[in-house]
């Protein structure tokens, strides 16, 4: 039994951290947000081939598995990166398509094309529920899917439709014909969402997933959101410890006040527990362990709530400055709140756990 990263994993983490600091620091993220154009980050992520981290090399990816993907998302969270394109692409489109026979071909095309796809499901629910209220007539699809992550700007959509137990996967290769995408404005401006309206849009049914396959695919997305929240929480605690160490009141740094220290210590307790959950889930999903999906739910429910608790502690400990637009904390704070709801609230995953615990 070994619960530690290996050398390559640590190198990967360091490489992503350094690349983010150098090319996608907070100043740049703010500029992209102000211009309402996140495409420079998308291009940067593609240039670094981050879409392929966790995808086997023979499929055109960078190799590695869920642990590597989780490490990447923890780092993206630490940097509050506009990582929606990676979540929708690597976690969503690739994660779902990889489970199909013939999915390898699809993967290669997506990776060669630089990503840019979106998983066409309402982003407030677990993705294995698929898109509801879509009518199918032959190869034509009609209906509305609200709040789709990264729909604005997507080159193609992967649409999972519920069948009896599983999901049919439809590819909408052309978002210009029969597809109308209306952007939604979020308080986290580093994320793009949109409502997708399909009117006799042409789709290709590329295969179907069993209920179990759908739950496994969703578990990967849940894991990645959890890993990102872990990174957000770590950075917010770092920012806070640094700030309270400098801020002087009553002639001493406020970090010397016991109440301040206790709030910071409790955040660390949350963060270390989240770390244990995220990386066990990543390993278990990677290795196809029977408890992988359950642990992804656990990680998602706990880590996103831990990040929100950390965000609120950080805000309080920063005093009024933390509440301003000018301070970077707001970027992390809003993302933590968004991730709580993204692809299934803690409540929805706890209800699933209660099912597993057979509480009737």
């Amino acid at each position, binding site marked *: *039994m070994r*619960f530690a990263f290996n050398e390559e994993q640590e190198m990967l983490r360091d490489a992503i951290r350094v690349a983010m600091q150098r090319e996608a620091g907070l100043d740049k993220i703010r500029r992209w947000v102000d211009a309402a154009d996140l495409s420079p980050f998308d291009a940067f992520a593609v240039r670094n081939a981050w879409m392929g981290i966790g995808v086997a090399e023979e499929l055109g990816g960078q190799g590695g598995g869920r642990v590597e993907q989780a490490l990447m998302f923890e780092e993206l969270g630490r940097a509050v990166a506009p990582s929606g394109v990676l979540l929708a692409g690597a976690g969503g489109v690739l994660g779902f398509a990889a489970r199909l026979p013939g999915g390898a071909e699809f993967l290669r095309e997506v990776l060669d094309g630089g990503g840019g796809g979106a998983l066409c499901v309402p982003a407030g629910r677990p993705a294995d529920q698929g898109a509801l209220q879509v009518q199918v007539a032959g190869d034509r699809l009609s209906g509305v899917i609200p709040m789709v992550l990264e729909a604005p700007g997507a080159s193609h959509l992967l649409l999972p439709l519920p069948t009896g137990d599983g999901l049919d996967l439809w590819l909408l290769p052309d978002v210009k014909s029969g597809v109308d995408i209306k952007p939604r404005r979020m308080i986290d401006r580093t994320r793009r969402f949109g409502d997708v309206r399909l009117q006799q849009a042409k789709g290709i049914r590329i295969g179907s997933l069993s209920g179990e396959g759908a739950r496994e695919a969703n578990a990967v997305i849940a894991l990645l959101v959890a890993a990102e929240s872990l990174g957000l929480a770590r950075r917010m605690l770092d920012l806070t410890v640094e700030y309270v160490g400098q801020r002087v009141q009553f002639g001493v740094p406020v970090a010397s006040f016991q109440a301040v220290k*206790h709030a*910071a210590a409790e955040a660390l307790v949350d963060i270390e527990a989240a770390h244990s959950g995220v990386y066990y889930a990543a390993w278990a999903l990677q290795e196809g362990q029977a408890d992988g999906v359950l642990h992804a739910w656990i990680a998602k429910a*706990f880590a996103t709530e831990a990040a929100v608790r950390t965000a609120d502690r950080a805000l309080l400990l920063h005093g009024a400055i933390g509440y301003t637009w000018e301070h970077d904390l707001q970027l992390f704070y809003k993302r933590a709140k968004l991730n709580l709801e993204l692809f299934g609230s803690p409540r929805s995953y706890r*209800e699933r756990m209660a099912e597993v615990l057979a509480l009737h």
Partner: protein
Amino acid sequence: MDFRDAAEDAAFRETVRAWLESEVPRLGPAPDKLEERVEWWRPWQRRLYEAGYAGLAWPREYGGRGASVLQQAIFYEECDRAGAPDRLDVIGAGFAGPTLIEHGTAAQKTRFLDRILTGEDLWCQLFSEPGAGSDLAALTTRATRDGEGWRIEGQKVWTSAAQVAEYAILLARTGEGERHRGISFFILPMRQPGVDVRPLRQMLGGAEFNEVFLDGAHVPGDLLVGQLGGGWKVAMSTLGYERAAIATGRVNTLRLLDELIALVRDARGADGLPLGRDAFVRQRLAELYTRMTLQRLTGKRILSTLAEGGAPGPEASTAKLFTTPLVEEICDFALSVIGIEGQEEPADTDPARAKWLRLAYQARGTSIAGGTTFIQRNILAERVLGMPRD
């Protein structure tokens, strides 16, 4: 990252499981009173010793097995699974013994260590005093030269198992130096005039810890451990072993959660409907289940670091702060499911109910023992996060 047992650990697990399967069912239920439980436990400890499972992580030359920390953890896991008795020798085998292995003389090792593993001697720890708890260096118990040995005067408190212990590890002041200097570490024979053990009744009425009055108690000259005046260093090793024993210890939250789930499955609300259909109950149980899972995974992280010879990182410092409220909340939730009958005198009520009540009260003790929650948070903030002292 790999959570599977290595081949030799998997083989060890199989062997242990088979052994426990044949041994555990022969034991009857544990008596409630500590004095009776000790006598019930001794034959079990003897069997552990004979089978080579006492002092798992102790070196072979001192009667242990020289097992890795992972194998020790596997052994405890399997004990939990098999419903084996709780350990009564935590102080002796868990931290007094290892301290003697590290700092004791050859004669002390020969005399004491084997009897810890066979269960012949139980030990207690005379560290805390009315004026020196978390601030241990404030202790005032004094040891003065008395012929070849020492004469001890002072008062200790919150001493678990003092009423059944043969020996104590004792900290006493032997010099006038600064706080941390002038403290020496002794072995004190408990059965002698001058050692007066007075049980302290807890809120629930039972007495598991004690005050110990030392009024002219005698420590023979050969029972000083380490250097005269060098007791602080020895005590720090003991506290290290104590924390490790707590971190890898036996509050089995998995078993607690299983029992809680069974309790909820069988329970009905005031409206007569199964409680397991109540959305609030489902959410709360799933939340406790989540934290139980993470607590166990963090335990694995700590073990993994120890197994590779590293010093545990922040995760070890946070483990106690994560675990203590979890155990309190699991027990409180169980009591809320039971309802008002959960508040009946433990002696008068169903043993299964009484267990939740006892555990709920004990858990409050855990948040105080080994450094209160407040002290632990200060330590975490200062030593891990690097925040300044106040």
